[in-house]
């Protein structure tokens, strides 16, 4: 089933490419219809997933090239489950709002479906070379989506995006090959292997772990993006068309956090434990820095882009807190951020389609002509601020409460991010949607159409569902998260802090100071 899930979008891309270019009215609806198929498959996968099971499920393996130990191997566990579902949800919605793509529409739809295959493949791949292929394949359609269908400085943004991430990938590939070579040197038959499960059994010296961890982490940190590797992101977002931004923020960034969680923590446990301070500090700097910078952005899309830097900082903090609550928070926050920020980018896009500007100062009082749009924006803004009852809170709260026992000082600093989030989001809402309505174009602004409402409503429903009953996801992720933590505890002398021992917190706090 997983192979089918990966390949149906690709198949869809082929189908769309067979439609003649002049039948342009067909491309988008067809693409949307075809992207519903992977959504159905992802739904089936989600609900047939065994929540009690920690290891990979629905594993499919076809050996590709024996001498190199490469195989087409897919599997899903609690870490990837939510991300695949999120990806499958966001694609039909993004295609639905792409009416404003006027030239080369067919190529656009093909690129989108191609991108979907790449993304789902990356999350499901259990072979590192396969993972890398998918990870790289994504760059091409995304490069095109920004560079062809983007805004004024699209070429600059696209090239920056491509080179920056490709630079990270080069190191990643080297490290992956190093792992395969190590496998050859450590197994009696001397065979290379890229099989993730096989590589988990490797015995890697602490020094090598540090180097390999560094290579993996740099590639993923650029993707997240972790401060200070984030500056490609605002440019890419501002120039990307709406669908591109939704997927970039909703899914592509998560490849970074997913990679850290999936590979860095499990393959290099010792390096993980010793490098916690570095990554946790960068994460917390990102939380505060992204939020502070977001406050004064004059461009609404850039504001949301910087808010992503802040929110993903929470994910990385949760990962390197190395507690089960922190890791669970990171996994669910990955999904949450995709839903809320995806929705916010959709809304900014809808605003842009109407007004052809994203400058906050061009708007004002829009809640009067467009109450529905204002309502959705405020709802998603509060989800993003972390209002309890909506999904954003669940992720951030798990991350904060989960990180506190292991990283008390940093967590307190990170918690201040929730104050800053309220400032930048509500100030933006205030300037765009409230106050007196001025300017003819603002006055005659159309409210959301039925289709736009239909695109946003499912996201709002999910935001509420995950906010009130996150168990639907948490119960499926918890066993896999525990397994990662167990693995780290087995391979190192690290012990996850037990809740219920405040004295420990005070002790570690004083150690931090000394």
């Amino acid at each position, binding site marked *: 089933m997983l192979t089918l899930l990966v390949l149906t979008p690709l198949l869809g891309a082929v189908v769309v490419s067979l439609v003649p270019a002049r039948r342009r009215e067909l491309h988008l609806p067809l693409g949307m219809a075809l992207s519903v198929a992977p959504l159905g498959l992802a739904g089936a996968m989600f609900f047939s997933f065994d929540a009690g099971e920690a290891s990979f499920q629905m594993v499919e393996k076809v050996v590709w090239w024996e001498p190199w130990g490469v195989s087409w191997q897919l599997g899903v566990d609690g870490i990837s489950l939510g991300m695949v579902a999120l990806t499958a949800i966001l694609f039909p919605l993004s295609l639905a709002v792409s009416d404003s793509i006027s030239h080369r529409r067919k190529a656009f739809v093909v690129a989108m479906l191609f991108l979907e295959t790449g993304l789902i493949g990356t999350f499901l791949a259990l072979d590192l070379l396969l993972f890398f292929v998918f990870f790289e394949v994504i760059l091409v359609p995304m490069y095109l989506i920004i560079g062809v269908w983007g805004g004024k400085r699209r070429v600059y943004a696209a090239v920056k995006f491509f080179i920056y991430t490709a630079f990270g990938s080069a190191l990643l590939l*080297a490290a992956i090959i*190093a792992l395969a070579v190590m496998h050859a040197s450590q197994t009696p038959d001397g065979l290379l292997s890229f099989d993730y499960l096989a590589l988990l059994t490797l015995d890697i010296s602490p020094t090598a772990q540090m180097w390999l961890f560094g290579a993996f982490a740099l590639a993923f940190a650029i993707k997240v993006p972790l401060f200070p590797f984030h500056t490609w992101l605002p440019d890419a977002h501002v120039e990307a068309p709406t669908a591109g931004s939704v997927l970039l923020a909703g899914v592509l960034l998560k490849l970074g956090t997913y990679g850290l969680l999936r590979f860095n923590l499990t393959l290099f446990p010792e390096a993980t434990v010793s490098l916690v301070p570095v990554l946790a500090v960068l994460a917390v700097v990102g939380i505060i820095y992204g939020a502070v910078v977001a406050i004064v952005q004059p461009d609404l899309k850039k504001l949301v882009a910087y808010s992503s830097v802040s929110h993903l900082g929470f994910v990385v903090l949760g990962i390197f807190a190395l507690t089960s609550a922190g890791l669970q928070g990171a996994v669910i926050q990955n999904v949450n951020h995709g839903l809320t920020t995806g929705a916010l980018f959709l809304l900014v896009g809808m605003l842009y389609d109407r007004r052809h500007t994203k400058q906050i100062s061009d708007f004002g009082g829009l809640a009067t002509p467009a109450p529905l749009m204002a309502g959705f924006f405020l709802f998603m803004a509060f989800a993003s601020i972390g209002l309890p009852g909506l999904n954003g809170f669940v992720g951030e709260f798990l991350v904060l409460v989960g990180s506190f026992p292991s990283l008390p000082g940093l967590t307190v600093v990170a*918690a201040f991010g*929730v104050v800053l989030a309220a400032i930048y989001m*509500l100030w933006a809402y205030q300037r765009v949607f409230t106050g007196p309505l001025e300017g003819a174009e603002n006055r005659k602004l159309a409210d959301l159409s039925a289709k736009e409402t239909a695109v946003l409503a499912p996201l709002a429903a999910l935001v509420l569902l995950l906010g009130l009953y996150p168990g639907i996801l948490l119960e499926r992720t918890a066993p896999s998260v525990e397994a990662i933590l167990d693995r780290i505890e087995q391979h190192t002398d690290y012990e996850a802090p037990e809740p219920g021992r*405040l004295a420990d917190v005070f002790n570690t706090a004083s150690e931090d100071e000394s």
Partner: protein
Amino acid sequence: MIDLPTEALWLVIALPLGGSLLLHFAGRWLGEPRAGYLACAASLAAFGVAAVAAVPFLTGEGQPSQSLLWEWMPAVGASFEIVWDPLSALMTLVVTGVGSLIHIYSLGYMHGDPRFARFFVYLNLFTASMLTLVLAGNFAMLFVGWELVGLCSYLLISFWFTRPSAAAAGKKAFVVNRIGDFGFLIALMLIFSSFGTLSYSGVFDRASEELTGSAATLIGLMLAAGAIGKSAQIPLYVWLPDAMEGPTPVSALIHAATMVTAGVYVIARSAPIFELAPAASGAVAAVGALTALWAATIAMGQSDIKRVLAYSTISQLGYMFLAVGATAYVAGVFHLMTHAFFKALLFLGAGSVIHAMGGRQDMEEMGGLRKAMPVTFLTMGIGVVAIAGFPPLAGFWSKDEILGVVFNQGGFFTLLWLVGLITALLTAFYMIRQFVLVFLGWPRWPEGVVPHESPRSMTFPLVVLAVLSVLGGLVNTPFRLGLEHFLEPSFEGVKLGHPADGVVSILVLAAVAVGAGVVGAAMAFFAYHRPPEAWRRFQAAFGKVWGWWEDGYRVDDIYGTMLVAPGRRLAEQAAFKLDLGVVDGAVNGVARLVRAAGTMIRPAQSGLIRQYGLWFGLGLVALLAWLLVRGGV
């Protein structure tokens, strides 16, 4: 006798929540006044259910109970669970009781507003949120209610969002509250770290075993930080006066009777923790006393009818803080309740006046309204006497108990008692001043204003609240400690602060407090029951000080120049200098460097794929070789 299981109490939350959802989708279709009727019915039904469920506590047979609704985030011990004990029962009754009256009042007040139904969506949602807060049996669920009331406050303050001042005030309220929430979040982290759960039953029962003194103090202080934000205490009170931008029923319900008391409730609820943290309690008491005095002085200088009441609310909340800080949790909750009655009454009365004056709020333009609006005049008069602390009205009993406890604590608390006493004098002053300026003397109405009594839907709640303001204090008098007895199960094992026993000391203290009130009231009456020139002369006699009070000590300006402006400059530096200049500059610099280097080694770019492959392979091998040697794998 119906015996409601605790499990069924989710209904109390679900009724207004359902009303809110229904109105959200069908409100415009229902239209005025049906949308309002539906909201009132939902609120009254919640009151009914709560009243039935509270009966066992009145008869003394009820036992506190806690029941799980569903697991929320098991990894951090967060779940939706309801606690039903006398404290939550009392809070629920106050919220739904006063809330229902304000719903009814709003039928008249919001009449004709184009967003009539929307208003009731928010009002019902607020009620549901506040009930979530008081019924929560888990700190995480408490935080849900805590933030949702903040959301409703935001939505209702900026209800007339086309006014820039309303939109700004809503945002300010939420952001300032968030600063307090930052402390609250830290408290939750500390609690989970100490107990491994956030459930009340798991925390309070084991508090004395698990917590060291310093841990309890830290948790107490962090909880207090949250409470200071929500209950508008120094230094975070600045959002509340601006919150008066909202429609007046909102000010009465959220910013006087219920939401702002949440901080007091949380401290009372966390009594088992504060009991282990005398330093945190002392800090709470000190903040309360200081705020009470501070805000009362500002209230004296206000000429906007609602701003007087706003500062008065801050001041009265200070009394409640003083009480719970002095471990007199029952006295604090008692004052919370009586204050809900008389302050809701005063705000609704003010709303009635504003309504009659065609939206005007400046007391200098009022005067002589007693004849035009007799019901408002009489009921508001009762509210004024109640808050000023004259016996036998509600405010007298609760305020007197607080001052009695504080005095009895001795030491440092004697100073706080004195502050409370001075505040009592000032309270009587600014309330009588308001009453005289609005209702007595000669009309100073602007052209075209023809005041009239408000419709029945608005005066009916006034009358009910007036009755409650008269009788509400009798539930807990030194002669019959009914409320204390009622709340006993909620404070089992907690040592409660009490006034000194003995009729003489009680009488002397009461006489002193009432005497202060009489002095304040008399001063205000003689100063303001005169022509405007005379009371302007009276104010001028205070010199600059009166100006400070008028301007609220310019605290908003000070925050603006000391915090907001530098913060914004910092953000601008970070965004435009650091991020674009340094961080992104470095990235582009590297890119330029590479390009420059590329020009030098251009010959290598032969276009032969094989050659690239060779270089790539060689590089990789070199890297691997180095890794293997260095890593020793």
